[in-house]
């Protein structure tokens, strides 16, 4: 197969040409240039436009070939008709990394031009992301080729989850969501038609990328199934892959000749392959990040959960989901029980879930958290604080964040409520605590973490 591509310069360029940069504020070529110039990219940016001299206070060039110094990355946003010509010029200029935003290729039946793009890339040894894509965001090097204005589409902070998406629209919406949820990313790539660089090349890159701890993916299909499977198997041993697959419905299966073909429709084979590769498949876009972020927690030693709550009902709902998802309710050690009994008022029962009662304040939470954190029989801690009570003040945020930062046991928080609760939840999330608004999602995510830790944690 292909040699592994080196995409480091693609994602961490020192100089970028924006081909098709425009003076018109509503043009894609303008927004991309603006995001680079104003977004804090520290390298050189060269607008390329044959009919402009200055764009956004930057000197513009008629062709990439006129740029006097080396260019690491070219972002092509021209009309479709001009793409092959400017790509050829990039080749002559010696630019090895290209993002082609422009659409109008195989996705609309224009296979011929798409093949020409591939041919040019091969001739010059180029790596190309696209065609028909949004390119990428690297929050570390501040490269951003996503053409949605920043005021309309939030950009996530720098973090440790990489997200690669076949669809640009889904990718952008998920970025916006991640920004709102306070989830940080290491890299976002929308790779469109995968004309040259495909999902498997990106996995290879992320496998090496030191900033990436977890890989989230949105795919509709893969180009080379067997190569994908082989690479994914290798990657999941080191970094978890959380994936959502679109296009699951099984048209054509009914006409299958054999029972086997009827039983193994296209999607069920995908799903089986994901499983074989150790990939964690999720069902919704919100699950994609809800599952990904739990993997930034330390690996649990087992699957025994301790639940701390100040609301009986939410504690019980959580306990139900813990068991339904194959996790266990921890049995505290005797010394933990004694310690808790001595510390807690008599109306608090020393059980699991540990219901600290409606009058619990942050200091009661502190005692409980301290005890369960120290207990070897508790592998995982879930806190379900109802923020709305009279006694609970925001100092509980610092408390949970400080325990979470010890990074010895996974801690997550389920908190349900309106805007006040939501503010506190966001603070926790920003402090690196994975937060959830339902026990259902939280326990599913945690069970995947426990599964992964059991399968790969010791390697």
């Amino acid at each position, binding site marked *: 197969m292909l040699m592994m591509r080196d995409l480091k310069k693609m994602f961490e360029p020192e100089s970028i040409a924006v081909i098709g940069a425009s003076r018109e504020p509503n043009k894609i070529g303008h927004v991309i240039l603006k995001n680079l110039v104003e977004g804090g990219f520290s390298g050189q940016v060269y607008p390329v436009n044959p009919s402009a001299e200055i764009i956004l206070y930057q000197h513009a060039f008629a062709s990439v070939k006129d740029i006097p110094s080396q260019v690491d990355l070219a972002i092509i946003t021209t009309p479709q008709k001009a793409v092959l010509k400017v790509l050829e010029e990039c080749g002559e200029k010696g630019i090895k990394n290209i993002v082609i935003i422009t659409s109008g290729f195989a996705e609309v039946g224009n296979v011929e031009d798409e093949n020409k793009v591939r041919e040019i890339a091969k001739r010059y040894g180029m790596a190309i992301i696209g065609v028909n894509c949004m390119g990428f965001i690297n929050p570390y090097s501040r490269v951003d080729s996503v053409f949605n204005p920043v005021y309309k589409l939030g950009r996530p902070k720098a973090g440790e989850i990489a997200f690669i998406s076949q669809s640009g629209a889904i990718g952008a919406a998920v970025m916006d969501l991640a920004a709102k949820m306070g989830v940080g990313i290491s890299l976002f790539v929308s790779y469109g038609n995968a004309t040259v660089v495909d999902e498997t090349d990106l996995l290879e890159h992320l496998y090496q990328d030191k900033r990436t701890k977890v890989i989230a993916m949105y795919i509709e299909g893969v180009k080379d199934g067997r190569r994908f*499977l082989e690479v994914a198997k290798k990657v999941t041993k080191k970094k978890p892959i959380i994936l959502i697959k679109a296009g699951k419905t099984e048209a054509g299966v009914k006409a299958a*000749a*054999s029972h086997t*073909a009827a039983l*193994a429709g*296209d999607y069920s084979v995908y799903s*089986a392959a994901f499983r074989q590769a150790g990939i964690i498949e999720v069902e919704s876009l919100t699950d994609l990040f809800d599952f990904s972020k739990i993997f930034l927690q330390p690996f649990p030693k087992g699957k025994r959960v301790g639940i701390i709550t100040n609301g009986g009902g939410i504690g019980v709902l959580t306990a139900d989901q813990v068991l339904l998802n194959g996790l266990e309710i921890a049995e505290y050690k005797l010394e933990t029980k004694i310690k808790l009994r001595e510390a807690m008022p008599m109306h608090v029962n020393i059980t699991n879930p540990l219901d600290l009662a409606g009058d619990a304040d942050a200091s009661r939470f502190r005692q409980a958290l301290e005890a369960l954190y120290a207990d070897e029989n508790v592998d995982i801690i879930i806190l379900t604080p109802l923020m709305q009570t009279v006694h609970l003040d925001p100092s509980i945020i610092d408390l949970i964040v400080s325990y979470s930062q010890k990074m010895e046991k996974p801690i997550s928080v389920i908190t349900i409520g309106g805007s006040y609760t939501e503010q506190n939840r966001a603070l926790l999330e920003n402090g690196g605590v994975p937060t959830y608004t339902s026990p259902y999602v939280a326990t599913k995510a945690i069970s995947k973490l426990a599964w992964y830790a059991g399968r790969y944690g010791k390697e």
Partner: protein
Amino acid sequence: MRQFDLSSKYEIPVVEYAIAKSADEAQRIADSIGYPVAMKIASSQPIHKTEIGGVRLNIPHDAVQQTFNDLLRTSISAGIEFEGVIIQQMAKPGIEMIVGMKHDQTFGPIIVVGAGGIYAEILKDVAIRVCPIDREDAKEMVMELKSYQIFKARGKEYDLDALINTILKVNSIALTEKIKELDLNPVIVHSKESGGGCEVVDIRVIE
């Protein structure tokens, strides 16, 4: 016949059968196999035989010729080219499974194990893997089926190793033979107290 070639080359145990072109021949074959027998429409076309009434079970000596003629009429009214009638020994009782393979357009050869027999497509209780697989994978496939509970629940010990061996044979077929799809359905897994092993009743090859 391709089916026969495959089963002998890969040593897949198939319940004894022969194809009769006439009612007289059917009687002779049934006599040599021993009663009762199963009788089925033979066809290289991809048809679901049970659904058109093309499968008759537990046929005694006196009903063989009548059944042959019935099946001939059935295949004519279903518009199937008549290639004869399969006369087959009645399979020993056991748990009915399906083992199959197909070439997937994305992942290449894949293997399927599931609850078999006439309800296979209704139950959809299947485990799928991309080939190649090893013995551990094959075992895992069986154990992840809902039907695996049945193997344990009947109070007998069934010959799972025989089933796993058959799965591994299909894995070899998938990797070597140029065929598009293959069904072994049903594969009847016998209990150890009745002698163990497993037997394939029907093989279908789509080239």
